[in-house]
């Protein structure tokens, strides 16, 4: 009653409008169009209301609008729980709340909504740019909170909020490092929890891998004992796709054993594989995994599988034998499956296959002829292939001739099958960069790839990469070099200029530690980090104790800063008191009513030799004590003057 705050000013509404714009902008791409429009209309209405000083919406209208919003969102998303509908609802409420805001506390609630929406950004993306964006939004949100307290334009609140952020930073670091981490989830994840993560899927259709390539998220890391494999050996095996329906490739057999079906021999690589939690069971081993991996399954299609989908970061020690022959002998059922094609699909391709196979003596010659065709067919490698309408295989081979790896692999396998040669599509990753910081090979989603495997009598399954025929550098040097120069590449993949390459390396190293230390700071890594700090293997009680001590120290530091200015004034008084004591010892005490200048004048008469020094000290003290503001060095100057004072 008596203590009600004053009503908000137009400036406060403007702060909120700006904050809403900054908050909602990065969310817009993920909101339904009608909601974006509704938010725009509500914010425009709020701006109009602010400038024409209209009263806020009544409670009834607000409730009706909120109900309409909730209904629209539950219809749009077909569910009400989960991240996407939740964020959409909050975005709508942020706009609606301002329209009905009457008092400052309403505006505060809206600001808290905006702060939560900054947090909501991370559900979709935790990259560095998003972090910067969220930090900016948080700053503006805090400034809006400050403006509600001091009613002072725009600069003052922004400055105070910036200082507060800086003061909050040490707390954040301590809490981040020491707050006992729990392995999530705490409760069952809603269905869309991992939807935003990009990764391989167990099927392939035109465009599905091209999508992945736009993401520089890490798929796996491998640290090798000894030298790493050559770039053209870095094939990380994912799903093997044997069944084709004319558009999409899917896996066939799902059999597995606890030991590999092939004898291992030849070159050998030992490495530790770290897999990102992408919710699929493939262990993405380098071809071909050696025996003796506890808990792993060796699929009949030579992948290594985990028992269940990987939902947290995993580390495994693996061996790889790139030179072994696999698929000798092969199950006739598998070979029959590897020759099947959907009836009626790709008529022109079938004719081409027949002409390629005509007169060849064995599968090997057909393979050579097909490879020759791909090499000389004028195919182009591009990240943005033209759309393929009816029959993707025919369309690619005869019309567009431009495509990404899945187009090459798919049509290549189709041609071979049409010619009666057993072949199949393998998806996974090709490539990997050694990070100069820690010598760890990093494989990203942008390294996703599809290639072909052909079964030849006496040689078993042989890897053939048709993409390499059209873009040879894809295999040896990576995606960036394989694409033609006019292709629009993600900026960080460009390497045409030296400084850009350097920048890219630095950025990647930074990104790597970002992923490792910020996003991947799991309970395991926390224990590892704390034990490296010399804290042993602390349990959570100990962590909480250390955390409390650290926060207490930080608070004490801030408190010392809060009390600091008082001591500074005391220092000035101490100096002056010391000066007065010195004169008093010489029989000239300061009289209680005497000001500094009068005292100095009297002292100068007593000690004519020290006149200028005494006057100087008194005037300096008077200026520091009673003048407008003191410069930082003034106190030291006065101190020096008093210490060097010589009385005759």
């Amino acid at each position, binding site marked *: 009653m*008596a*203590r*009600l705050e*004053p009503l908000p000013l137009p400036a406060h509404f403007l702060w909120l409008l700006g904050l809403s714009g900054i908050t909602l902008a990065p969310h817009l791409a993920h909101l339904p169009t009608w909601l974006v429009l509704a938010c725009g209309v509500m914010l425009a209405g709020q701006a109009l209301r602010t400038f024409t000083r209209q009263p806020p919406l009544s409670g009834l209208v607000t409730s009706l609008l909120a109900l309409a919003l909730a209904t629209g969102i539950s219809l749009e998303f077909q569910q009400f729980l989960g*991240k996407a509908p939740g964020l959409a609802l909050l975005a709508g409420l942020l706009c609606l709340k301002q329209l009905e805001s009457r008092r400052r*506390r309403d505006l*505060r*609630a809206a600001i808290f909504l905006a*702060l*939560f929406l*900054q*947090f909501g950004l*991370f*559900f979709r993306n*935790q990259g560095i740019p*998003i972090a910067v964006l969220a930090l900016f939004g*948080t700053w503006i949100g*805090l400034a809006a*909170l*400050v403006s*509600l*307290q*001091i009613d*002072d334009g725009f600069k003052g609140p922004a400055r*105070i*909020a910036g200082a*507060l*952020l800086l*003061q*909050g930073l*040490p*707390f*954040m670091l301590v*809490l*981040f490092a020491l*707050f006992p*981490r*729990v392995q*999530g*989830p*705490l*409760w069952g*994840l809603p269905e869309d*929890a991992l939807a935003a993560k990009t990764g391989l899927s167990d099927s392939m259709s035109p465009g599905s891998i091209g999508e992945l390539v736009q993401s520089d998220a890490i798929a796996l890391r491998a640290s090798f004992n000894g030298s790493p494999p050559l770039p053209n050996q870095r094939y990380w095996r994912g799903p093997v796709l044997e069944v084709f329906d004319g558009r999409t490739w899917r896996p066939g057999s799902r059999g597995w054993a606890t030991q590999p079906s092939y004898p291992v021999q030849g070159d050998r690589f030992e490495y530790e594989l770290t897999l990102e*939690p992408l919710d699929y069971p493939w262990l993405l081993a380098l071809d071909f995994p050696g025996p003796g991996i506890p808990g792993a399954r060796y699929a009949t299609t030579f992948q290594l599988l985990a028992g269940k989908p990987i939902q*947290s970061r995993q580390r495994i020690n693996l061996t790889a034998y790139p030179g072994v022959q696999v698929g000798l002998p092969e199950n006739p059922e598998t070979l029959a499956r590897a020759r099947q094609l959907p009836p009626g699909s790709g008529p022109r391709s079938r004719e081409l296959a027949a002409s390629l196979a005509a007169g060849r003596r064995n599968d090997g010659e057909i393979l050579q002829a097909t490879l020759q065709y791909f090499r000389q067919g004028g195919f182009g490698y591009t990240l943005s292939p033209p759309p393929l309408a009816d029959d993707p295989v025919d369309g690619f081979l005869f019309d567009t001739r431009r495509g990404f790896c899945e187009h090459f692999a798919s049509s290549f396998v189709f041609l071979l099958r049409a010619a009666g040669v057993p072949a199949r599509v393998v998806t996974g990753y090709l490539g990997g960069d050694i990070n100069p910081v820690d010598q760890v090979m990093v494989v990203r989603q942008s390294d996703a790839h599809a290639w072909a495997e052909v079964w030849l009598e006496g040689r078993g399954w042989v890897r053939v990469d048709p993409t390499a025929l059209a873009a040879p550098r894809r295999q040896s040097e990576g995606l960036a070099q394989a694409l033609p120069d006019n292709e629009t590449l993600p900026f960080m993949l460009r390497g045409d200029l030296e400084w850009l390459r350097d920048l890219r390396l630095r950025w990647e190293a930074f990104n790597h530690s970002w992923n490792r230390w*910020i*996003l*991947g*700071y*799991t309970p395991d890594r926390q224990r590892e980090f704390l034990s490296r700090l010399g804290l042993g293997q602390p349990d959570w009680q100990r962590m909480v104790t250390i955390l409390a001590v650290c926060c207490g120290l*930080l*608070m004490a530091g*801030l*408190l010392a800063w*809060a009390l600091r*200015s*008082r001591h500074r*004034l005391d220092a000035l008084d101490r100096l002056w008191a010391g000066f007065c004591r010195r004169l008093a010892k010489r029989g000239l005490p300061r009289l209680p009513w005497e000001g500094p200048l009068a005292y100095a004048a009297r002292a100068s008469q007593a000690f004519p030799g020290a006149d200028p020094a005494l006057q100087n000290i008194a005037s300096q003290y008077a200026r520091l004590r009673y003048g407008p*503001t003191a410069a930082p060095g003034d106190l030291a100057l006065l101190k020096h003057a008093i210490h060097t004072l010589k009385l005759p």
Partner: protein
Amino acid sequence: MRGLASTLGKRLDSWLFRIRPAESGPIQLIQRRIFVLPSGAGLLLGLTLLAMLLGAINYNLGLGFALTFLLAGVALSSLLQAFRNLLGLSIRPGNCAPVFAGEPANFTLLVHNPRPTPRPALRCWIKGCPVTDFQVSAKATAHVALVRPTRKRGRLEIGRVLLETRFPLGLIRAWSVFTPDASCLVYPQPEANPPPLPTGPSSAQAHQQGAFGHDDFAGLRNHLATDSPRHIAWKVYAREGPLMVKEFAGGDAGEIVLDWETLPMDLATEARLSRLTAWVCQAGTLGLPFSLRLPGLRIPPSAGTTHASRCLEALALFTLPSDHGQA
């Protein structure tokens, strides 16, 4: 039982907030006089942060943890900022002009900021009374006007005063409770329609000489709320001097006698005082000399505002000699 509970409540209150009798000197807001608690908005932010923390744990959001902890750190540092915004302020009571009962008393507190940085977003109020929002510039003193309604005549203590800030984010409430040594003199409420001024035997003569008291300039004195604007020394004020009032030597005094005893017998004490107050005001406005007679007190005849104030003060603080037990 209720009495006991309220006594206990008061004891707890005074122990918790260190309520002491009114303090005469300047009140320094040192560490232990400042209390800090989260405000409603602070609790709401706490809930928001809890939701964020659960979300970050559930979805394994590294940046979610970072943002949650950053905001928690900001809230913690805002706690110290709020505390620091009050720390070191010194408060002295200022003047309080007398008022008539029923009018609000206007107390003034001088809040001094010795620090070279300003103190924004301060609020001050007397317990149960309206709030004054103010701020103090760097190394400056703010005059904070506080109102308190009055009902009874007498000396009104300022009572318990609260000084609060929610700077910088409104999440934390830092406050201090103190009782400055300030009081306001409350005159009795003048009777609305009093009978005409009682005139003594020579009142006609006095009326003829009414202007007499305005002629001989006797000196200057401080302005009081009851002074007629005609007597203000505007020349002094124009020279940026204080608001002063010219005093004139009264004429032949004793013509008007405002006597308690001559009032009708059926009038109660407060009604008598009310009527006397109204008469004093009338006489003061007209500049007529008068004398006041109360049981146990006689104020000799005089004119002018000093005299009127003296009479009004006597009326305000009057207690019947036999009323001591009841007062």
